[in-house]
């Protein structure tokens, strides 16, 4: 079965609320059928606005959104057949769990026994069988969340939108719900558009992530690519932890460039620099820099330990390295032989491939 790779399509979409500021700028985004795509970004980056335009609660100022090749800008929300899970669940407080789930079926004039069957199925999918007659207020946050998910799925929509659905849950519950939602997605193969500002959530759940900032998609790629190969310094900064050096390119070849820092020089991977004299920000993931590396690495520096923080499974070490006093290292706690004391000088090495020379900040 060939999947429609343009199942949902944002085509040159602009959105402005006040006619002065564009909240979403020239958005082009294709979502394939059955995909789990996450819109990730800081608040005010336009990701929720995109979701609301897709749901039909906002209209694009310019451009068009297509659902299964049909333009939907002029279709009211209730005719779009898109399921939605809201930030605060938006369960109807005066209806039981059963009535909440039956609502989308009843308005579609589904037969009573058919409704019973579907509600049953949806509730067992979120492992809440037997909760039919409870009121939403009698449920815990996690249970309410699951009811909201079940309600958004019970009428077999083609697309389900989730607007920061786990934001109100505590950390442990949030993690287990992440897996649960992921499994539901895998089992029924529905297209999910998920909005969050939590990068951990985005990385664990999605097929692809669209990183939003300033009304634009900064990068759209799979979680591992996003983390390992950020295309600009915003993405590098926003996803995961990140050590940066600001400098100027002094020499450049195909795979490697020389970057002159304030006090020193490093080799880096030229991602978005093209010629000598370009200003750049070099980004290195903390786990890519090693202490006393055994293998040969093309960047070798010495830093002074400024701070050591014990984190259970690993220890974070903050160094003063090449004038960057915020250089972070993550040391697994299995390597005990290291002498991590404040003020000690240690050797640090990394490959130029992992030091990405991106656009200047």
């Amino acid at each position, binding site marked *: 079965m060939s999947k429609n790779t343009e199942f949902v399509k944002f085509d040159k979409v602009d959105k402005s609320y006040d006619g002065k500021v564009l909240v979403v700028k020239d958005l082009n985004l294709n979502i394939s059928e059955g995909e789990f795509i996450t819109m990730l970004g800081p608040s005010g980056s336009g990701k929720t606005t995109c979701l609301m335009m897709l749901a039909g609660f906002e209209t694009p100022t310019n451009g068009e959104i297509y659902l299964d090749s049909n333009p939907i800008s002029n279709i*009211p929300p*209730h005719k779009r*057949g898109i399921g*939605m899970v*809201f930030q*605060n669940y*938006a369960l*109807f407080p005066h209806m039981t769990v059963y009535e909440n789930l039956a609502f989308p079926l009843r308005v579609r004039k589904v037969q009573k026994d058919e409704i019973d069957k579907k509600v049953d199925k949806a509730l067992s999918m979120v492992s809440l069988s037997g909760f039919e007659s409870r009121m939403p207020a009698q449920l815990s946050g996690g249970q309410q969340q699951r009811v909201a998910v079940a309600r*958004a799925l019970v009428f077999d929509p083609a697309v389900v939108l989730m607007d920061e659905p786990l934001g109100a849950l505590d950390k442990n519950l949030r993690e287990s719900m992440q897996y649960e939602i992921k499994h539901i997605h895998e089992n029924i193969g529905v297209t999910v558009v998920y909005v969050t500002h939590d990068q951990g959530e985005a990385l664990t759940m999605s097929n692809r992530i669209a990183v939003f900032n300033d009304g634009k998609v900064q990068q759209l790629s799979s979680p591992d690519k996003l983390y390992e190969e950020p295309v600009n310094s915003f993405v590098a900064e926003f996803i995961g932890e990140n050590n940066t050096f600001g400098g100027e390119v002094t020499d450049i070849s195909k795979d490697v460039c020389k970057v002159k820092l304030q006090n020193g020089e490093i080799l880096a991977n030229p991602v978005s620099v093209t010629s000598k004299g370009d200003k750049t920000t070099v980004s290195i993931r903390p786990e890519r820099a090693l202490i006393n590396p055994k293998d040969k690495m093309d960047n070798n520096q010495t830093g002074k330990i400024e701070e050591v923080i014990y984190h259970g499974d690993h220890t974070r070490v903050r160094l003063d390295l090449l004038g960057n006093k915020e250089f972070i290292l993550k040391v697994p706690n299995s390597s005990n032989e290291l002498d991590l004391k404040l003020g000690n000088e240690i050797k640090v090495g990394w490959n130029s491939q992992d030091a990405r020379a991106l656009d200047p900040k």
Partner: protein
Amino acid sequence: MSSETKQILTTDGIPLEISLKKAERKNKIKAFLLVAPLLLFLIITYIFPIGEMFTRSIDDKMITNMLPKTFKSMETWDGKELPSEEVFASFLSDFKILVEKKEHGKLAQRLNKEKNGFNTITKKLFRQVKRNKIDETQSIKEQIMKVHKRWRNVEYWQAIKRTAPPYTSAKYLKAMDMYLNEDNKITQVSEDRRIHRILWLRTVEVAFFVTVFCFLMGYPIAHLLATLPMKYSNLLMICVLLPFWTSLLVRTASWMILLQQQGVVNDFFVLIGLVSDDNRPEMMYNKVGTYVAMTQILLPFMVLPLYSVMKTISPSLMRAGKSLGGTPFVAFWKVYFPLTIPGIGAGCLLVFILAIGYYITPALVGGASGTLISNQIAYHMKTTLDWSFASAMGLMLLGGVLVIYWLYNKLVGVDNIKLG
């Protein structure tokens, strides 16, 4: 906790419950002292006057105290034929005392209310007594009967006996256009004299429709208030509250200016050709005026509870309703509307209760067909000075409100009321 469970002791060996009570007693006393002034105030200004109103409305002790001996001797009288010599004698002795105290006029007035005709015959008897014409060595019965033929009529003696009990329901019956007839049966007054029942019905009708109008107008306003952005909703809120800051009289007077036949509204109708100049509709001194003015004045009482409830309803609920496939109407009717019921209940109850006792506005713009029961109460308070009748009607109004409250509690549940 069952009594078998072991008693829990504090570290000092005192049972926990006792210790807890001791610790809380101080707080309880403090709390009571804090509310005590208010409680006292309520008792003095509310409970006591209502009790006073009640006793006044059923009080009939005046005549009981005027004719103590008469009523005593009447106890054995069967009330079918003229009473015995003894009754006449005690009546005369009571009457003489009243004449001395110059209270025989009051007696005549009171008896005349019971049965027409007592005024004349009491006056005649008074003259006889004053001139010492009655010889107490002779049969007093014969002598009194000679004073006027009505004293020979058993119906008048029956009327006296009817006034014997110190309490009477007559005022309440009168408020319902009924009275106790000679045989102690509840009878309706003749049709042309039934005014109170019309007033009661009209009061309920006006209160009901004012509530309906307030609801129809207040619901959209409250919704707008709850959904508009802050800067507009504040302005709108001021418009809603403006009537509160204006004197009731001023507001009613401005309605008079607007609604009268040569008023602004009529002028406008004539201007746009809706009505001809010599055929201006009467919009005041009738029910229309009462409806318009009362609806405007009571509108905030509907809007505010509705607003406070609507403010708490998350806009995402309506969106959820729509995204799940409900048309805007279905989403409103199935999701939004049921959630506003506590506000509707509170608003309607408030407006209805206020409307049912409304006084100034109907008095000013109501005219003859727009006055309500409260105007009647005021009339008896100020003009006829029949305070016990006014009290009786006031209490009936209060009783009616309590019944509505009880009904509301049965149907919606008072816990669901949300006033703010």
